[in-house]
């Protein structure tokens, strides 16, 4: 069967507005987690966030996206989407044809507009401009209408693994012949809904997060978006090919609505399943972009699951120490980072881990390194037990 390859990438996050800016920031070990300067929240001074320092209005100007009802979520998505389709040199005709699919993911959608939503949901006189923008699908419907896309369009929400599943779904659509190419990715922006939700669960850290550190205090929320263009290898002969999407697995931890099982069954099975689907063995993995949210539960469980699967643990790190946890965007952003690892044969340091977790002794990569890399695994685990692992390989 023909391999599915990545021919375009786009990303915007707290560490950069483009792929190139993100790469530089990763090389330099830059942390984009700061105190809030744009998003209004009671928690602005109390805890740091991976905020993108561009106002919504400025995004509208830059992208010439001034339609009434367009949300910050849609704008961030558009920003990364444009970069990805230009990178893959997709023409207007490519975009409009019935076999170009768009599979996106978001866990916040238009709910970033908490106050407008509250008003529209509770009043009955006159609605705001955002009536059609609150749901999860609004982002992809906006992109679809803007580019007059006629292929399959879908939105997936499996919490923090959403966009990893969007990537997997896009690959399967192409393999099944339902699409010739798929633009896949995810987006989330900071929202009172998620900030307060995660805060109510007591898993937000008051300080900058420290993935895989014994003293970790929780995660920092971030915002961002990333998209990838997927095509069959034979359709991409004249294109720059970044990587092959060689393995994927979706499974469920079936343990608890908001935390992972002690032994990490879900993470173990998703990593193992991804290896099987890629026809690889554990020893073939050169690097793992870990889910690594820096919550007490995730990092311990993910570590244990890695120890269960790998005789020798590959180098690993969590880029959430750079960007914060971008929820529905995380899987796609980290897919782009994994592709950068492969393209430039380099790995980026995981930040802020000073003391490995005592029970596991695993230390993430501490320095920028040039390294021969062939297969990279990227993990995404979410509420509802939704676990997905992806494997990207050099061509």
């Amino acid at each position, binding site marked *: 069967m023909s391999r599915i390859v990545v021919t375009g990438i786009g990303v915007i996050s707290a560490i950069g507005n483009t792929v190139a800016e993100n790469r530089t920031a990763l090389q330099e070990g830059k942390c984009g987690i700061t105190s809030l300067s744009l998003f209004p929240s009671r928690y602005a001074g109390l805890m740091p966030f991976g905020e993108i320092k561009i106002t919504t209005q400025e995004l509208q100007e830059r992208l010439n996206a001034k339609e009434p009802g367009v949300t910050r979520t849609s704008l961030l998505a558009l920003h990364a989407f444009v970069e990805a389709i230009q990178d893959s040199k997709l023409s207007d005709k490519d975009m409009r044809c019935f076999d170009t699919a768009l599979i996106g993911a978001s866990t916040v959608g238009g709910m970033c507009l908490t106050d407008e939503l509250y008003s529209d949901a509770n009043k009955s006189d006159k609605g705001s401009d955002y009536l059609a923008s609150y749901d999860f699908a609004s982002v992809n419907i906006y992109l679809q209408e803007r580019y007059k896309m006629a292929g399959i369009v879908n939105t997936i929400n499996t919490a923090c693994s959403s966009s990893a599943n969007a990537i997997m779904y896009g690959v399967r659509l192409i393999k099944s012949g339902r699409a010739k190419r798929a633009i896949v990715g995810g987006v989330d922006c900071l929202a009172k809904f998620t900030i307060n939700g995660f805060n*109510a*669960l*007591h898993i937000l850290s008051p300080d900058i997060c420290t993935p895989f550190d014994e003293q970790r205090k929780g995660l920092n929320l971030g915002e961002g978006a990333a998209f990838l263009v997927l095509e069959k290898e034979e359709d991409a002969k004249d294109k720059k090919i970044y990587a092959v999407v060689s393995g994927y697995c979706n499974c469920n931890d079936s343990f*608890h*609505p*908001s*935390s992972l099982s002690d032994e990490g069954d879900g993470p173990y099975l998703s990593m193992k399943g991804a290896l099987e689907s890629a026809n690889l063995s554990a020893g073939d993995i050169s690097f793992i972009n870990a889910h690594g949210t820096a919550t007490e539960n995730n990092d311990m469980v993910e570590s244990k699951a890695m120890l269960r699967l790998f005789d020798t643990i590959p180098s690993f790190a969590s880029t959430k120490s750079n960007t914060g946890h971008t929820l529905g965007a995380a899987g796609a952003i980290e897919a782009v980072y994994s592709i950068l690892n492969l393209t430039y044969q380099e790995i980026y340091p995981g930040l802020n881990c000073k003391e490995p977790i005592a029970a596991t002794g695993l230390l993430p990569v501490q320095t920028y390194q040039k390294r021969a890399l062939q297969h990279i695994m990227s993990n995404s685990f979410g509420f509802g037990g939704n676990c997905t692992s992806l494997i990207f390989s050099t061509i």
Partner: protein
Amino acid sequence: METAALKEQLKKQIVEFLNLLSVKPEDIKDDEPLFGEGLGLDSIDSLELIVLLGREYGIDIKDPKEGRKILVDVNTMVAYIEKHRTK
């Protein structure tokens, strides 16, 4: 408020706050474990109970781990409320 009355009130609040459909407040024993075997509550319930203590008694518990020592049974909760309540 008398301790007995406070216990009765707290049991009602627990049942209502956690929507314990099949439990009558008077059926909860003072020393019945809230978590695990007894009432069978879980980690999300413990966070909800911390919110209950905040809203009803003005008690601010920052660290959920500290909560675990308080949220053992109705006796331990009432003892803590009597000592720390601000409303």
